[in-house]
């Protein structure tokens, strides 16, 4: 049985631009999928296709067990959408906004009223409930937008860059809300440009670029794929760099990099903490004073750069050729080889 959100071969073209070039997704019920990618990668278009806002040119989409193309209105009853821009009416109060959305989800006026009050409390907006949303801060508007998406407690939620433009405090606040939501069993598809956010909130991550999912897996799997752990050393004296380099080269399993100005040396290793202890002992034995040392696993930033960096290399070839079958095959092979 497909997951709560399932997509197969979604294609969407705007004029000459192929916004989606065969997106496949499968989000099991009750989990969070982070859709990660740069601007213009196709994240928003994917969300729009899955939330009935946009009809894909081809492909299949199933949300909450319902075919998105055949039963759009039924899908709408089972989803909540919180967009990149807080879509609330700024001249209406927070309460009026939520009541309106409730009624448009076909709730009775009384039920919509009660639910609005409940959500305003839950999202810490009760004090501002009867002020026009125009007077709200960015974080409050975002919370109101999210509350509007949760009016009917939909089993499947879509959030398109929910924290873009928010300050760190409001981002933390929103993350807490999202975590609560997910612990309640909601399936969530979240798009983000913030690797930290995907790392923090998502069970699975799909990296999107040029309208395609170019990598997927848990955050750990993706990091492992980019390369294993590395030892990073910052030496105290610049003249110790050559010696430290010698020591690290002895433990390293790959190319060693040196940043002269920060006195930082990095080398890929295998062997974990035990190896780190050995490195420290050896450096100490050679009399090298160190400011910092650590075993680093690659961040999602590394993953992202290495993945999209690779695609960027392929790009001239894509542009130089028409999208005929052989070119496509070659591209697939390259991806498979990753």
């Amino acid at each position, binding site marked *: *049985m*497909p997951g709560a959100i399932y997509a197969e071969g979604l294609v969407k073209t705007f004029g000459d631009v192929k916004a989606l070039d065969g997106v496949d997704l499968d989000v099991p019920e009750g989990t969070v999928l982070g859709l990660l990618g740069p601007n213009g990668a196709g994240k928003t278009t994917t969300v*729009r296709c899955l*939330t*009935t*806002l*946009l*009809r894909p040119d081809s492909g299949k989409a*199933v949300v*909450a*067990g*319902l*075919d998105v193309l055949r*039963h759009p*209105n*039924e899908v*709408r*009853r*089972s*989803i909540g*959408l919180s*967009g*990149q*821009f*807080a*879509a*609330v*009416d*700024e*001249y*209406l109060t927070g309460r*009026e906004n939520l009541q*309106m*959305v409730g*009624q*448009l*989800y*076909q709730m009775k006026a009384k039920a919509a009223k009660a639910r609005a009050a409940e959500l305003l409390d839950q999202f810490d907006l009760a004090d501002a409930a009867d002020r*026009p949303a125009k007077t709200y801060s960015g974080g409050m508007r975002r919370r109101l937008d999210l509350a*509007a998406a949760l009016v009917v407690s939909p089993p499947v939620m879509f959030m398109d860059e929910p924290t873009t433009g928010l300050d760190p405090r409001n981002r933390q606040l929103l993350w807490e809300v999202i975590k609560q939501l997910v612990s309640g069993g909601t399936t969530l598809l979240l798009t983000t440009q913030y690797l930290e956010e995907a790392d923090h909130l998502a069970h699975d991550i799909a990296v999107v670029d040029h309208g395609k999912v170019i990598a997927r897996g848990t955050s750990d799997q993706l990091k492992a794929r980019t390369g294993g752990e590395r030892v990073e050393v910052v030496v105290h004296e610049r003249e110790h760099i050559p010696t430290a380099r010698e020591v690290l080269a002895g433990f390293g399993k790959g190319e060693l990099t040196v940043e002269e100005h920060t006195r930082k040396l990095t080398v890929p290793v295998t062997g974990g903490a035990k190896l780190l202890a050995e490195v420290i002992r050896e450096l100490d034995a050679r009399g090298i004073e160190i400011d910092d040392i650590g075993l680093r696993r690659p961040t999602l930033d590394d993953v992202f750069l290495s993945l999209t960096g690779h695609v960027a290399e392929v790009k001239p070839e894509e542009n130089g050729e028409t999208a005929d079958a052989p070119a496509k095959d070659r591209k697939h092979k390259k991806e498979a080889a990753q």
Partner: protein
Amino acid sequence: MSAVTDAVRVAPTGNPVSQSFRDSMVVAKRNLIRMSRIPEMIIYGLIQPIMFVVLFTYVFGGSMQIGGSTSATDYKNFLMAGIFAQTVTFATASSGAGIADDMHKGLIDRFRSLPMARGAVLTGRTLADLVQTALTLVVLAVVALLVGWRVGTDGDTNAAKVVGAFGLLLLLGYAFTWIGALIGMSVRTPEAATSSGLIWLFPVTFISNAFVDTSHMTPWLRHIAEWNPFSATVQAARVLFGNPGQSQSDAWPMVHPVWASLIYSLLIVVIFRTLAVRKYRSATA
């Protein structure tokens, strides 16, 4: 498994017509609340037609020939049906700007992701505009009376006819807000909707019988003016108000202005509602 849940969840929820009505009312209420919180919009919407009433009455009155007379009083009584009709068409711009603004701010996306009737967002907006148009007409009628406009000066009239005239004017205004809705769905910014909502209204309202007697126009222009849907409503209002300067042309809309006005307005609603709702369904902000 998914086929089973499909069958359960796809069960229809109530009558689509009553749902459409209910949703439209929810959206209309939202727009009315919104308008009440931006009173300056309503005030500016009133200043313009009042200015037209005063300017046309005192500047043009006395130098315009209406039915062979250049009396300022005749022109005043002739003019009001035209000003009323022009005023109701200005709702086109506000309707278009409102919808473009909703698109721009992502509200249309929110609405489109909700399980609501497809036409309700636009219907709600046009109904709210209709309420605003009605208020504007009431104020304008009072101002017209203050500057000396009277009904029944050149023909029979009665309360029912006067109410009927205002009804036709409101229907015309309502029809034009659907043109505005289509414009609002088609442009990128509210500013573009305002200007493109107004520009074409000038030829439509001026190449008509609203401000001058069409019998003095060049024949080809006169034909356009006489068949202009806008002119039909002006002529109908003039006939029903019993005001001077009714067109004596034998063009069908001028001979049967009430029917022509009704048919034209309903046709505009049907055509532009269909186009605007189709646009709404596939809208991409």
